[in-house]
Every structure is written in C-alpha cells, then in structure tokens.
C-alpha cells in the first residue's frame, strides 16, 4: 500500500503541477500548489511507515507552512487585485522581457 500511496502521491502532484500550468486564475493556481503540497504530504505519510514518525512531523510543519503561505499568498492576491481588478495572471505583465 505504501508503493501505491507513493504513486498516488506522484499522480496528485502531477495533477497539481498540470493545474498550475493550465489555470490562469491566480487563486486556482495557488490551490493547485496546495494540492501539490498535499501530495507531498501523502508521500511523507507513506514513507513514514519505514522511516518513522519524523516523516510525519515533517507533514505537520508542511501544513503549518502551507497555512502561512495561504495567508500571505491570498493577501498578495488581494493586494494585486486592487491594482488590476483581476486575478488573471495574463494581465500582470508590466514586468517582462
């Protein structure tokens, strides 16, 4: 089941990554990243069977970090929404080349 979990984790990670590529809505992109983090968490949980509880501890920190990131990230999105009235990343191209 560990191997399966790892594969599932990889699959979810891939879906998340693909989501980041496919979506243009900053919030949804961020959600996809959250999914990727969760996929990694799944990996940690899976390997903790052999590695021990320290891998689970890692997950705790990841979750905390994810929460912190969510706070900051959403704040940033709000901040940029004030300027562009949009969260579509295609619009954010003042800086390029």
């Amino acid at each position: 089941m560990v191997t399966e979990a790892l594969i599932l984790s990889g699959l979810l990670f891939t879906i998340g990554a693909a989501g980041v590529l496919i979506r243009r809505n900053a919030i949804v992109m961020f959600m996809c990243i959250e999914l990727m983090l969760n996929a990694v968490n799944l990996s940690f949980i899976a390997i903790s069977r052999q590695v021990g509880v320290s891998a689970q501890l890692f997950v705790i920190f990841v979750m905390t970090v994810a929460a912190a990131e969510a706070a900051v990230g959403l704040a940033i999105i709000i901040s940029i929404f004030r300027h562009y009235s949009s969260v579509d990343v295609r619009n954010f191209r003042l800086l390029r080349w």
Partner: protein
Amino acid sequence: MDFTQLIFYVAAGLAVVSSLLMITRKNPVFSAMFLIVALFSIATIFVLLGAHFLAALQVIVYAGAIMVLFLFVIMLLNLGHDFEPDIRGRLGWAFMGGLGLVLFAEILTAVQGAPGDAGGDVLTPWFEAKGVVAGVAEPLFRDYAVAVEITGVLLLVAMVGAVVIARREA
C-alpha cells in the same frame, strides 16, 4: 483485495477524480470545493497509512481552515462566477497534459525503486507503544522543539505580512 485496500482505492480514485475536476472547473468556487473533496480523500488515506493524528490535522487545518480562507477570498474578490475563461485552450490542455504525463512517468520510475511495503513498518509498533497523539507529540516537542519555535516565528511573519500587504492604503 481486503477491505482496507478497497477503501484505499476508492479514496485514491476519489482524490484523483476530484483533483482533476478541480483543475478543470471554470468556477473557482467549484475548484475549491473539489479540492476539499480531494483533501478529505487524502485524509482517508492518511488513516489507512496509520497516521491518524495527521488525518485529523489534515481535515482541520486544510479543509477546515485553509480552504475556508480560499473560499473567503474568492468571495471577497467576487470571483465566484465562471465566465472568466481562465483555462487554457484545447491545445494548451493537451500540451500541459502531456507534460504532466511525462512528469508522472518520471516520478513513477523513481518511486518504483522505493522499498514499498517490503521496507517493513516501524510506525505501527511506535504508535502502539506511545499512542496516536503522544507518538507524534513526543518527538515533536522533544527533538524538534526548536523547529516548533521557528514555526511560531514563521506564523508570526505570515500574519504580519498578510496584514501589511492586504491593508488598504491609507
């Protein structure tokens, strides 16, 4: 196929399907909802893998806190409608999907080298000895106390940062 495995596959299938739905739904609210479903499914798998405490955390923190935050922001910014075409076209889809497949294939190749179930299970004895919560808490606060401290700082930073940056200009 025993019962656990059945649950595992159901949960896994659910997770995959809902995450696929998440990245394909036009409406961000739907996406968020499907992500929550996916997170629940993953929490289920956590349980199956023996991480009961973390499964609880997953539900509480992720589904309960983070995703609510997401939904809140989506609503705040009034993005809860689906006319904004924020998904790439068919060609982009295919291309990105292809890239995803390649990535998955690569991960798969690597993961196959992992010990898998054959690597034994050190976790079950540990939790049996320590209990589900204490088994996590003890090493967390004994061996990683310093990390916990840092996490505190991190959360402080996140809080301060979020406040500062989202604050409306005076």
